[in-house]
């Protein structure tokens, strides 16, 4: 009999320190340190091969770390008891095709130690959440890929787990399904679950996550709340009639840089844009375009992960698992 986990709401849902995973010469996870709190939606981003799925497998005990340590819901990585309160949607989602959707969920209810009397109700609730209530009696083998992913999401949410780990949860879904998933993730967080969302779909992460970590080559290259990761707002102005010697006059708006006809002030408060434009005009500049705002997550992501990568079309460095 697996002992019930000692869960405490004070302990983080995930806490890893200097987590490492090496496959021969390849360092898939290289000293990962992060904390995911209860009730937060945490986006885990990275390009293909950055070590995201390996990290998920380490968290769930499907692979063993070669260094560092970590805890899930206060228990060491790989602890079977803690897994009672963890829901998981794998990247490669596949469920017994000979079972009906509801049977897959009751099976997982049994595997997670749920009493028999609760399994049916929990299965129906999970099917309702992911929009498969009317397909409960259908064989999984007849489901489309998108429906199987919805079923996997239901499996992950079964029994109101304290931690939900979703590995690319919308990879097989259409736009409607993706919107649904955002609502489902938010719903799970609203009832107190921590959601660890592993994805490379940045718009999805941007819309749903409280905090993010960007991982590349097995290391966290940026982490924090979205505002912190995205940085402060910037202003870009396409103009003529301005030279490097004019720049000190506008430094009070923020540090300016001039490359060709593009003036960039980063960071800069968006409220000051009209005053800056007025001053530039008074200095004789001719302005053709003004853009002000924050980098998108996609821009920021590309800045962070593209720094040490060769341009497309050139021989690339060995990729990570």
């Amino acid at each position, binding site marked *: 009999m697996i002992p019930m986990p000692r869960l405490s709401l004070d302990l983080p849902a995930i806490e890893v320190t200097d987590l490492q995973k090496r496959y021969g010469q390849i360092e898939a996870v290289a000293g990962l340190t992060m904390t995911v709190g209860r009730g937060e939606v945490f986006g885990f981003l990275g390009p293909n091969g950055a070590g995201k799925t390996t990290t998920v497998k380490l968290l769930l005990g499907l692979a063993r770390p070669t260094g560092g340590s970590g805890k899930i819901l206060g228990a060491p990585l790989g602890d079977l008891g803690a*897994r009672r309160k963890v829901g*998981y949607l794998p990247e*490669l989602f596949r*469920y*017994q095709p000979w079972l009906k959707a509801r049977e897959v969920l009751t099976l997982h209810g049994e595997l997670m130690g749920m009493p028999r009397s609760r399994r049916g109700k929990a299965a129906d609730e999970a099917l309702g959440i992911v929009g498969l209530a009317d397909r409960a009696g259908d064989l999984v083998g007849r489901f489309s890929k998108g429906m199987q992913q919805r079923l996997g999401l239901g499996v992950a949410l079964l029994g109101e787990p304290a931690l939900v780990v979703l590995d690319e949860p919308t990879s097989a879904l259409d736009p409607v399904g993706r919107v649904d998933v955002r609502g489902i993730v938010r719903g799970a967080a609203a009832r107190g679950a921590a959601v660890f969302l592993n994805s490379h779909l940045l718009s999805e992460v941007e819309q749903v996550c409280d905090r993010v970590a960007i991982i590349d080559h097995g290391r966290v290259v940026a982490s924090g709340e979205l505002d912190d990761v995205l940085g402060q707002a910037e202003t870009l102005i396409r103009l003529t009639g301005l030279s490097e010697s004019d720049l000190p006059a506008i430094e009070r708006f923020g540090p300016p840089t001039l490359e060709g006809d593009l003036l960039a002030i980063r960071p800069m408060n968006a409220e000051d844009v009209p005053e800056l434009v007025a001053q530039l005009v008074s200095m004789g500049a001719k302005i053709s375009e003004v853009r002000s705002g924050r980098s998108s997550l996609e821009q920021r992501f590309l800045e962070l992960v593209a720094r040490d990568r060769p341009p497309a079309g050139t021989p690339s460095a060995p990729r990570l698992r």
Partner: protein
Amino acid sequence: MLAITRLTIGEAARRRVLWVLVILAAIAVSLTAWGVSSLIAAARDHGVTDLEIKFAVSQILIFIAFMFGFVLVMTAAFFGSPAIATELENGIAQAMLARPLPRASYLLGRWFGLAIVIVGYAAVSGFLAIGVVGLVSGYVPPDPILPVAYLAGQALVLLSLTVLLSTRLPPIAGGAIAVVAYGLAWMAGVLGKIGLALGTTSLVTASDASRFLLPTDALWQGVVYGLEPSFVINAGEGEFVARTSPFFAATGPAPAIVAWSVIWVVLILALAVTQLRRREL
């Protein structure tokens, strides 16, 4: 573990494997009954004595058991070789092993489920064949449970081997290795009998070593012994030709080799659990 055992049996039923096995068993038993009754009728027409008919029927039963044993072993290999490998490849196992399910429970649950299906198939087909032959010929082996148990034991040995291979190898590779190993062990058993009759120590040693590594041949001797009437055993015991035949056994397998077969299965399953625990998913 029980959940996985039930799931595995359920899979065999839902995928219509059980029905196919039942239909095949019914066809095999019907053909056996028809063949044996035709042979007996023809023999009686030619004035063959009852004792000779009894001898012939026992030999037919042994031959049927040989064919059925091979089918059973192949079934075990087909069931066992994908048991773990396929679910690891397609991701079904990962979703379950992320639950509080120990890997040992998963593997042993799969093995027990398949073992129940195989033993059930062996028992139903074996007893039906013996019963039907008994009805049409009047010959029933002295202890019908023994040969069926040894047949099932052979299949369980192969199932265990393929489940072990399945923790590391793709299904086709595991199945092929197990079937080839079974064939080699059977041949080693035949050569061992010839070696024993001729007094060739090296052949006997090689055969003993083979039985130690894969004890299926020793169990086959139990099947043959269990199907023979006592007068065949008495008549064949001193005969060179009989003693070298894989279809004759003067004695059943020694208790030590039967005990080793059980220990072998336990050790192989323990090794399989260790391999799966070590494996990175």
